[in-house]
């Protein structure tokens, strides 16, 4: 990233006593304290608590006992975990990596050709779903997909079947809802990226007789591959953490058919009152997040030395 490049004209070039150097870093203090207490703290606490039988209420809430790897043993034996992992992968893959990413790119590409008025109108519609508070978006999506909701009205209007989406195909409804909610982010990233592609390059390809699709596939996409990688990483992390949308629309049901990892962690901790086990599930999610985070930082460091 450009910002990490050392500043050329920096006042530090004057020799400073060692103490002074540390004093100058003091203002970072409050931020460091907050990050340690409220971010690093819970992460470490999670790994600790996942080895205890901490509970929501009762004796084990006041003084949790050490149970070693018991929670993780239970986790591995729990038939819900593989299901939950698979649903999480399906949700992230289907709604973020395929859905939001490709639709966002398509909208951004189309917008380069469209008329100004259309562009503003559609841009507003896409961004509106993203800017709304998540609970409101979740209610709107719930109404849209419910048995007598708008989607079934439309399907009925053209003479198709009207399934109960939230009950029969909960994951389909959730993925479509998440695409609706989150595509704006990818659209904004790709619009910014496409604006940075110099016009001469595509013009030159046009002169050489490349068709629109060829220009997109062989010229434009390779030039914005940095943005594509960044976008994929960020929307993966955002989608991994989606809770409210799922909780409002299906609450993980029917019978665990849409229980992604965040929902599973919440249910175990608060519905069944087993904080220790819920924390073990959360730890798995944190680990996945940490792996993606590390990959993301590496990616940024490598693309811009």
């Amino acid at each position, binding site marked *: 990233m*450009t910002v*990490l490049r050392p500043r050329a004209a*920096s*006042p*530090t070039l004057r020799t400073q006593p060692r103490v002074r150097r540390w004093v*100058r*870093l003091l*203002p*970072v203090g*409050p*931020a460091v304290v*907050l*990050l340690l*207490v*409220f971010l690093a*703290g*819970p*992460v470490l606490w999670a790994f600790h608590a996942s080895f205890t039988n901490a509970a929501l209420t009762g004796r084990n809430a006041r003084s949790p006992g050490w149970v070693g790897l018991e929670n993780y043993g239970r986790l591995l034996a729990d038939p819900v975990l593989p299901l939950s992992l698979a649903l999480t992968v399906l949700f992230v893959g289907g709604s973020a990596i395929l859905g939001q990413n490709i639709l966002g790119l398509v*909208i951004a590409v*189309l917008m380069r050709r*469209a008329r100004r008025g*259309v*562009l503003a*109108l*559609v841009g507003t519609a*896409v961004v*509106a779903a993203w*800017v*709304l*508070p*998540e*609970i*409101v978006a979740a*209610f*709107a999506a719930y*109404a*849209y997909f419910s048995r007598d*909701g*708008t989607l079934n009205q439309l399907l009925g209007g053209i003479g198709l079947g009207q399934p109960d989406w939230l009950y029969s195909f909960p994951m389909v409804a959730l993925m479509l809802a998440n695409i609706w909610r989150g595509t704006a982010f990818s659209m904004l*990233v790709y619009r*910014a990226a496409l604006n940075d592609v110099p016009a*001469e390059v595509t*013009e*030159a390809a*046009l002169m050489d007789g490349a068709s629109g699709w060829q220009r997109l596939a062989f010229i434009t996409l390779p030039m914005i591959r940095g*943005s594509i990688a*960044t976008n994929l990483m*960020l929307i993966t992390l955002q989608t991994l953490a*989606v809770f*409210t949308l799922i909780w409002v629309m299906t609450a993980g049901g029917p019978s665990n058919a849409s229980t992604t990892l965040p929902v599973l*962690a*919440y249910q175990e*901790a*608060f519905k069944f009152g087993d904080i220790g086990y819920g*924390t073990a599930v*959360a730890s798995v*999610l*944190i680990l996945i997040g940490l792996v993606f*985070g590390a990959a993301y*930082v590496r990616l940024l460091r490598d693309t811009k030395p």
Partner: protein
Amino acid sequence: MTAAARPSLRTQGQAPAGPTSRAQRRAKTAADVALLLIGACFVLPLLWLVLASLDTGAGHQTQLPHEVSLDNFAAVMTPGLLFRPLWNSMVLSAGTAAVNLVAAVLAAYPLSRYQSRFNRPFLYTILFATCLPITAIMVPVYGMFVQLKLLDSVPATIFFMATTTLPMAIWMMKNFMDAVPVSLEEAAWVDGASSLSALWAIVLPLMRQGLGVVFIFVFIQAWGNFFVPFVLLLSEERQPAAVSIFSFFGQHGAVAYGQLAAFSILYSVPVLALYVILAKGASSSFALSGAVKG
């Protein structure tokens, strides 16, 4: 491609003007139609929200109200149902944004102005922290808050919410600060000002817009946040609108969809307004230039 070659290519391209422009116009229309279809799909779920809020007999269907009335809005505009939760949201979001702004400005200043071995690792850690799925740490945070007896405390919730957005805020703030030339402060240093007074008197006024962007960005996120207050704030009189709307309509939703929609709209208006300010004030790809492109 050389600069000299470019003009000649342009004129070549414009030579067969007729067919190209017609094909271009057709491509333009096709793009317009495709975009409008996509836009319609995005508007549909929101259309229900607007129509249902005006319809006292609203259900899940999208339909024109038999008679347009503002009864739903009147029904939810009571102190207990709307105004207190909105005030709680206000306190929570403004507090979060204020804590964020102070901590982020202080942290960004040395990172932007002084070179140190500490900078790069710190910035990479910050970037790494932005990747942590906050949903994943809510169960451990709840456990931690129980142990520290911080559960149901508004200030503790504010500090936690501020921390979750702090990495992004520091990152954006440093980028805004980097854009303020260092030469102005050097003049102040020569006159004997300390670095913090230079920050206060010279740098901050010059990056007003950046401060506004970060404040609004954090405020919008806090205002819309459901999960954090849902887990950490238990008593009803402290809960923000996001949580109260969920618990009230979880019980009464089946009969009062119109009221649910009206409540949702009243609760969403502040963030929509702030977003418009943000998008107008900053460039079109506002926060993303600070957040994604670095």
